[in-house]
């Protein structure tokens, strides 16, 4: 820009110099032409009168040397027929006929005539003036003068000198000015435009910049706020969240994604391919499908966890612009799903076993294959099996009630010792059958709870202690308060639980010794009921056992 300004300034100077020089050359040419005309005219009158009065006049003209120098007047006398009778410079006899010269023709016609003719010398011309004398001869005066170009040419050296001076001046001045203009612009503090001290012409610009700065500031704040909101939302999501562009490069992700995919921060980075996050077959497939415009949802295993992998394309006007990938940890859900399936299978199996027996006995009786005296025994068997079924269904109902917490059960203050004694009474007959000593010791322990559920819990524990015992063994039920917490403890010196089974005994239908389950009876739901009851009351169940030595279960409130 600076160069352009200097350049145009110089051009303006140059053009104006040339133009003015040419103009002044032309003007001065016409001025001098006018002067020459007038003086020639006057001179012609003198010479004319001189010739008319004195015949020697012409000779004296020649002797004076008229017309020999470049700009003096050349005098020529032309006879009426056009022959030259006298010329102050050349020999008249050798000169051609002048009758056809324009000034001579004009002089014959109107008395005077003039013409301008190019000279043989470059840039010179002659002004010719002719007067018709009284005797019919024509007197012609001819003056040499510079042409227009000649007069301009004379100015060229001046023009060059002038140009150099003016150009220098123009360059220096315009450089200085452009510096003055540009310097403040270069030094503008764009962050605080109104604080700049510059010339007035820039004020509107600064005002505008100031406003735009404010707008930008507002927009930035808004964007930041939105970004923060977005980050807050995604960062607090339990689900992994990854946004990729159309090339599969990561645009954004949250910490859950990093956690779920098990990558260290250094590996997965923005603007890196999403495949650096995970490259398992399912993941690749889901991303590729999403980027080709198909939304997918699938369950995939990454490491030890199951994830629900949802990949959705982000569609723009020009097709797919990227994809959003959401990862949900469904390991627990899958696990509970698996347990539910197992439970259903177990329940069906447990329900079917007594029913098959019942159906078998009934079939034999129906077909008349049983002697009438055997019928009571068969009926007894059917009765036992139905009792087992009823117990099983009752247990399942209890469990599902605890599971659903559908029934609103009233909590009251109850004494654990009372419940323990009650339970012991109910089980005493069974215990005595196996010669097991059953005793309740300790002190009263009051807790807040649902008596029915507490009763179930203690009943199941004592029932197990009796069931999985040896003949002549013992079961101790202790209640009391220790460290401000009420507790009930059921200890036996029975068969114990093998170590590998200990963590499973609270699972539904889990039997340590599957082969003996029928013989011992029970539904396999007892400890499950204890576990759910404990969860219901928010109490702690601790199980200690040694195989062959005995088992102790303590419930601490």
């Amino acid at each position, binding site marked *: 820009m600076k160069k352009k300004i200097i350049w145009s300034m110089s051009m303006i100077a140059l053009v104006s110099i040339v133009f003015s020089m040419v103009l002044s050359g032309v003007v001065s040419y016409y001025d001098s032409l006018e002067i020459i005309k007038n003086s020639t005219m006057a001179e012609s009158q003198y010479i004319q009168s001189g010739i008319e009065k004195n015949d020697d006049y012409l000779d004296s003209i020649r002797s004076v040397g008229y017309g020999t120098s470049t700009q003096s007047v050349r005098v020529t006398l032309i006879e009426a027929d056009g022959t030259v009778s006298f010329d102050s410079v050349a020999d008249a006899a050798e000169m051609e006929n002048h009758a056809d010269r324009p000034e001579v023709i004009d002089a014959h016609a109107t008395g005077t005539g003039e013409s301008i003719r190019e000279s043989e010398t470059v840039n010179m011309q002659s002004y010719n003036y002719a007067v018709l004398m009284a005797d019919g001869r024509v007197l012609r005066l001819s003056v040499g003068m510079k042409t227009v170009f000649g007069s301009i040419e004379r100015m060229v050296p001046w023009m060059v000198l002038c140009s150099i001076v003016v150009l220098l001046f123009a360059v220096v001045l315009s450089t200085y000015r452009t510096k003055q203009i540009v310097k403040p612009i270069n030094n503008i503090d764009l962050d605080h435009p109104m604080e700049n001290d510059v010339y007035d012409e820039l004020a509107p610009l600064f005002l505008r910049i100031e406003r735009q700065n404010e707008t930008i500031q507002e927009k930035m704040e808004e964007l930041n706020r939105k970004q923060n909101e977005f980050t807050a939302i995604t960062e607090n999501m339990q689900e992994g969240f990854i946004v990729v562009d159309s090339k599969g490069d990561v645009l954004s992700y949250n910490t859950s994604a990093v956690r779920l995919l098990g990558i260290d921060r250094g590996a997965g980075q923005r603007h890196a391919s999403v495949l650096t996050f995970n490259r398992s077959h399912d993941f*690749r497939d889901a991303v590729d499908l999403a980027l080709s415009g198909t939304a997918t949802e699938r369950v995939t295993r990454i490491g030890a966890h199951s994830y629900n992998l949802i990949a959705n394309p982000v569609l723009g006007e020009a097709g797919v612009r990227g994809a959003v990938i959401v990862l949900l940890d469904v390991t627990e859900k899958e696990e509970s799903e698996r347990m539910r399936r197992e439970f259903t299978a177990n329940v069906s199996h447990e329900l079917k076993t007594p029913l098959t027996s019942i159906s078998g006995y009934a079939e034999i009786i129906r077909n008349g294959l049983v002697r009438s005296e055997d019928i009571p025994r068969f009926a007894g068997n059917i009765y036992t099996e139905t009792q087992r079924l009823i117990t099983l269904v009752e247990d399942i109902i209890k469990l599902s009630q605890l599971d659903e917490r559908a029934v609103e059960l009233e909590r009251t203050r109850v004494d654990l010792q009372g419940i323990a004694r009650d339970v012991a009474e109910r089980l005493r007959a069974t215990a005595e059958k196996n010669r097991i000593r059953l005793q309740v010791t300790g002190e009263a322990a009051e807790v807040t709870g649902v008596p029915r559920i507490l009763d179930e819990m203690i009943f199941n524990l004592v029932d197990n202690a009796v069931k999985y015992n040896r003949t002549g063994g013992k079961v101790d039920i202790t209640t009391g308060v220790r460290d401000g917490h009420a507790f009930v403890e059921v200890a036996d010196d029975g068969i114990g639980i093998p170590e590998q089974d200990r963590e499973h005994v609270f699972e539904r239908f889990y039997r340590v010794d599957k082969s003996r389950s029928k013989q011992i009876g029970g539904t396999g739901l007892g400890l499950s009921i204890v576990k759910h009851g404990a969860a219901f009351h928010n109490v702690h169940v601790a199980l200690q056992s040694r195989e062959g030595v005995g088992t102790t279960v303590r419930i601490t409130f």
Partner: protein
Amino acid sequence: MRNRFDEQLERLNVELIRMGALCEDVISQAAKALETPTDEFRQIVYDTDHEIDRKEREIESLCMRLLLQQQPVASDLRLISSALKMISDMERIGDQAADIAEMTAYLKDNGMDSQLHIAEMARATIQMVTGSVDSFVRRDLELARKVQADDDVVDALFNRVKKELVERIASDRSSGEDCIDLMMIAKYFERIGDHAVNIAEWVEFAATGQHS
């Protein structure tokens, strides 16, 4: 111009990750076919192997284009030249996995038999390939060197399987044919481990310019 070059380099990077992931897939699939030798599982291995071959050609031409059109230097050149070497190792992994799958068709006995250590070999090689691809993805030299060291584990397992098979032939002559097939499968796994080591070495070369 540079931008386009960077874009192509990034594409090379992504394609290599993809090919590495396919290699991880193909060995797991081969191990699966060994466990359950059905035509269906074998076919999955062959399909993945074909895909790996396609990927190799694709990456090869990409590398050639990069070399000819961009004349890369220094680390870029190292990356591209090691990519060319890596893909041939990866391609071999695919072929050997396909070979394993093919062998499963003739086995009378289950290859993943718990008395043999082939299952361990499969696990160890899968881990090595995963490690080598991971070291490439993260440019993790430490991991690359760990993969190179892990080869000893696979080699030791191979020797163990060899001994076990020798004992088996000695005790039961009729199982000879099966044992030789199993021996070859073990050898393929051992070779896959070697290729994983090669990949890890090229990762190291791409990063440091030193080839061990």
